[in-house]
């Protein structure tokens, strides 16, 4: 049944095959007026935008994930069927624009014919007219329009050609109403007809084809209630409905019918398709050269986020500490200036400082995606990553994780298999990021002597590399564990279209960079600010009276020892931190971390470095009343002299330091990453699990190191006792 009345359209769905150039068309139609949300219940991005169609006419355009047909294999693709078989859905459109690659119409028309059968007004947008022109592909639009019985527009998302025509058509439909397709394309087989009729009895608002799709997909269609699902299941089994067979028959029938139509309306076909692409791929996907080139590109990406981002990051940090300094000077000393300078501004700075890395990584990743290279990376690494339950694209995330886990986690969006994506998100923070470097630098000096092997290889450098390798090994091993634990309804397969190489469209890239940076600042920012303020409060307040007492004690001592103003202030800061809630917490967790060889001072640093790992160095500087002297050499020098007040032994023995190093390699000590993981997985469950297993592993490994070290020293002393005994006896 088709609707006879013509209702003006308000919302339009943009649908197309992957690689049809859909997102370029979306950007052309909406410009900057777009926002990213998500489809209900799943972690699939939903891009919505407004299309201006005249003075006061706008329609809403919803960009759906690219899919090949109504028989989907991933959550992304399922969204399309889910929405279009549920007229009550919030995203159910009034009309559809179907984007097809004009040069591949013989493949891309399948989904179009399926959309025809929904009975919704439908526009066929033949995209990539610029490429078609270059390659000599010509389509008889008039004829195709007549054959399909619906409007056909030739456009180019790249050059903007034809977009105005498309908008005119939409404007007409938005004011005068839109015609539904004259007839449906596919004729249901008798068996399909029976089942569709039965399903329609339960769901009168569905047309025949929607009812058939419901019979195919009732298992996972989430809008069905338990009883509705059971009803459809009963019908399906009572009629012995063979879903897979019917699916194949339907698909074949559609091809058999539209292929002859196309032969009449495609006037000339390009001959040697993708000659340039094939030539390039002979090198880029070569089993040796391809891998080398990939690692070369990744080295460049790493270099860009690691080194190039340092300049804007330094500038941002300087700007925020300048602002904080102004606040401290401008406002009377007290909790307000502390809240603004050390809570709010520190939190804000902690967010904004990551923007250069995020922007640069997404610029490069989107560039690689746009030119078509990413699909090749998947092809190259599919097998090896499969072993670890990961995806070819996970390589990119894990390498980026070497700079910073935040953009790396965000970059997993391009992994379409949910399980593979989740594992990538969960294990990427094991890769040593740049924030761990200051911690490593301070602590390695205690464990490894500054010597060289054969006069060339620095032992400390080797230890550094060892820590990185440890992180990588942990990531891969954890991935294998998750591969076994996590269940997935998605069957793992690789059937990937390798798009032809194209010059990148800069507008698409900038829009992605802008959208990713904005999402990070807004979404992760909320969480980070709250935690930053909480950490500030913990470090600045203590049980009533104790803070004042600590300060007075510091003043008394300063006078006693004749400290100058600077030394006095540092001692006050150290005593206050000790007396604060953070200090109390440090003492409270001391029993738990004692077995690892850590005292309560390290406990405080562990708590505060949750804001960001590099805060460890700064906190250590404050605790040891070094004031602003938070450069690594000074801190290391001071720590090397620290003694246990009871036993009189050095605190930073090689054993403690090794244990602490291992702890920092594994522990999830970064609230920003957790905030981003929450944002990407849309629940607190995964960041919580991640925090627990990473920190748990850190604890166990640290304990092991600590125990082994003390065993070793016991053995050493035993040995020396034996030696002396032996020498006495002799």
């Amino acid at each position: 049944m088709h609707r006879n009345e013509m209702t003006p359209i308000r919302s339009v769905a943009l649908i197309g095959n992957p690689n049809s150039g859909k997102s370029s068309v979306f950007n052309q139609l909406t410009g900057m007026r777009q926002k990213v949300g998500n489809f209900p219940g799943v972690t699939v991005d939903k891009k919505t935008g407004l299309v201006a169609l005249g003075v006061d006419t706008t329609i809403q355009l919803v960009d759906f994930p690219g899919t090949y047909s109504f028989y989907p294999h991933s959550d992304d693709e399922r969204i399309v069927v889910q929405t279009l078989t549920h007229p009550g859905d919030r995203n159910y459109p009034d009309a559809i624009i179907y984007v097809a690659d004009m040069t591949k119409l013989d493949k891309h028309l399948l989904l179009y014919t399926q959309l025809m059968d929904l009975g919704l007004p439908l526009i066929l947008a033949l995209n990539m007219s610029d490429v078609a022109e270059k390659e000599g592909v010509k389509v008889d639009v008039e004829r195709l329009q007549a054959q399909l019985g619906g409007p056909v527009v030739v456009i180019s998302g790249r050059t903007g050609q034809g977009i105005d025509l498309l908008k005119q058509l939409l404007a007409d439909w938005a004011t005068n109403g839109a015609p539904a397709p004259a007839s449906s394309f596919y004729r249901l087989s008798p068996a399909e007809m029976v089942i569709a009729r039965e399903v329609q009895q339960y769901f009168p608002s569905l047309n025949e084809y929607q009812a058939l799709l419901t019979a195919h997909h009732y298992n996972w269609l989430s809008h069905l209630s338990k009883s509705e699902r059971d009803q459809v299941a009963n019908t399906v089994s009572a009629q012995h409905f063979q879903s897979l067979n019917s699916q194949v028959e339907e698909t074949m029938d559609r091809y058999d019918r539209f292929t002859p139509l196309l032969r009449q309306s495609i006037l000339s076909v390009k001959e040697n398709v993708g000659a340039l692409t094939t030539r390039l791929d002979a090198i880029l996907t070569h089993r040796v050269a391809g891998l080398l080139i990939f690692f070369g590109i990744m080295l460049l990406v790493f270099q860009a986020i690691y080194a190039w981002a340092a300049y804007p990051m330094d500038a941002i940090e300087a700007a925020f500490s300048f602002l904080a300094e102004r606040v401290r000077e401008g406002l009377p000393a007290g909790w307000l200036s502390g809240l603004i300078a050390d809570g709010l501004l520190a939190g804000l700075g902690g967010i904004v400082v990551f923007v250069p890395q995020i922007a640069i990584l997404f610029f490069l990743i989107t560039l690689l995606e746009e030119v078509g290279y990413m699909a090749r990376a998947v092809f190259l690494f599919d097998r090896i990553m499969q072993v670890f339950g990961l995806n070819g694209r996970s390589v990119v995330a894990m390498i980026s994780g070497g700079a910073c886990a935040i953009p790396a986690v965000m970059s997993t969006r391009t992994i379409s298999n949910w399980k593979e994506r989740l594992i990538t998100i969960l294990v990427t923070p094991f890769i040593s990021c740049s924030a761990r470097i200051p911690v490593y630098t301070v602590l390695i000096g205690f464990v490894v002597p500054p010597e060289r092997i054969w006069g060339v290889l620095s032992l400390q450098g080797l230890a550094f590399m060892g820590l990185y390798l440890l992180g990588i090994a942990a990531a891969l091993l954890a991935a294998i564990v998750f591969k076994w634990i996590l269940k997935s309804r998605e069957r793992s397969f690789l059937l990937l279209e390798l798009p032809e190489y194209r010059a990148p469209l800069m507008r698409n890239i900038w829009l992605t960079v802008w959208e990713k940076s904005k999402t990070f600042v807004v979404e992760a920012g909320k969480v980070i600010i709250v935690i930053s303020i909480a950490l500030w409060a913990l470090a600045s307040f203590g049980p009533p009276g104790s803070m004042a007492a600590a300060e007075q004690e510091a003043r008394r001592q300063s006078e006693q020892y004749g400290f100058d103003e600077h030394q006095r202030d540092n001692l006050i800061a150290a005593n206050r931190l000790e007396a604060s809630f953070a200090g109390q917490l440090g003492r409270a967790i001391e029993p738990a971390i004692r077995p690892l060889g850590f005292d309560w001072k390290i406990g405080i640093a562990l708590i505060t470095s949750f804001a960001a790992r590099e805060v460890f160095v700064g906190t250590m500087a404050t605790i040891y009343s070094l004031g602003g002297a938070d450069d690594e050499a000074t801190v290391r020098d001071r720590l090397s002299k620290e003694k246990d007040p009871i036993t009189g032994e050095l605190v930073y023995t090689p054993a403690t330091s090794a244990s602490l190093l291992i702890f920092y390699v594994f522990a999830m000590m970064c609230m920003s990453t957790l905030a981003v993981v929450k944002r990407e997985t849309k629940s607190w469950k995964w960041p919580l699990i991640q925090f627990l297993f990473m920190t748990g592993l850190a604890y166990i490994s640290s304990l092991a190191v600590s125990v082994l070290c003390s065993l070793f020293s016991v053995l050493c002393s035993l040995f020396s006792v034996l030696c002396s005994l032996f020498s006495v006896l002799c």
Partner: protein
Amino acid sequence: MVATSQIGKRLADCAPGATGQIAYYAGNEIGAKLMAMGVLPGSMVNVLRFSPWGEGLYIKVDNQLIALRKEEAACIVMK
């Protein structure tokens, strides 16, 4: 006609450089997915190369380039 009992060669067993026509799919699930992508019985297939670890195939079907695993290619029966 099917005069011999010989089963058609699978795409997974083809060497790089081989060309042929798809006869049918052994396995409806992969078959359905391939068909949705426009890889149909009767399509011309050209095996361009294997992936570095040999478990992936880079093929050209009509006018498109596709990467797939050997497992999937084993479901494609050639003429």
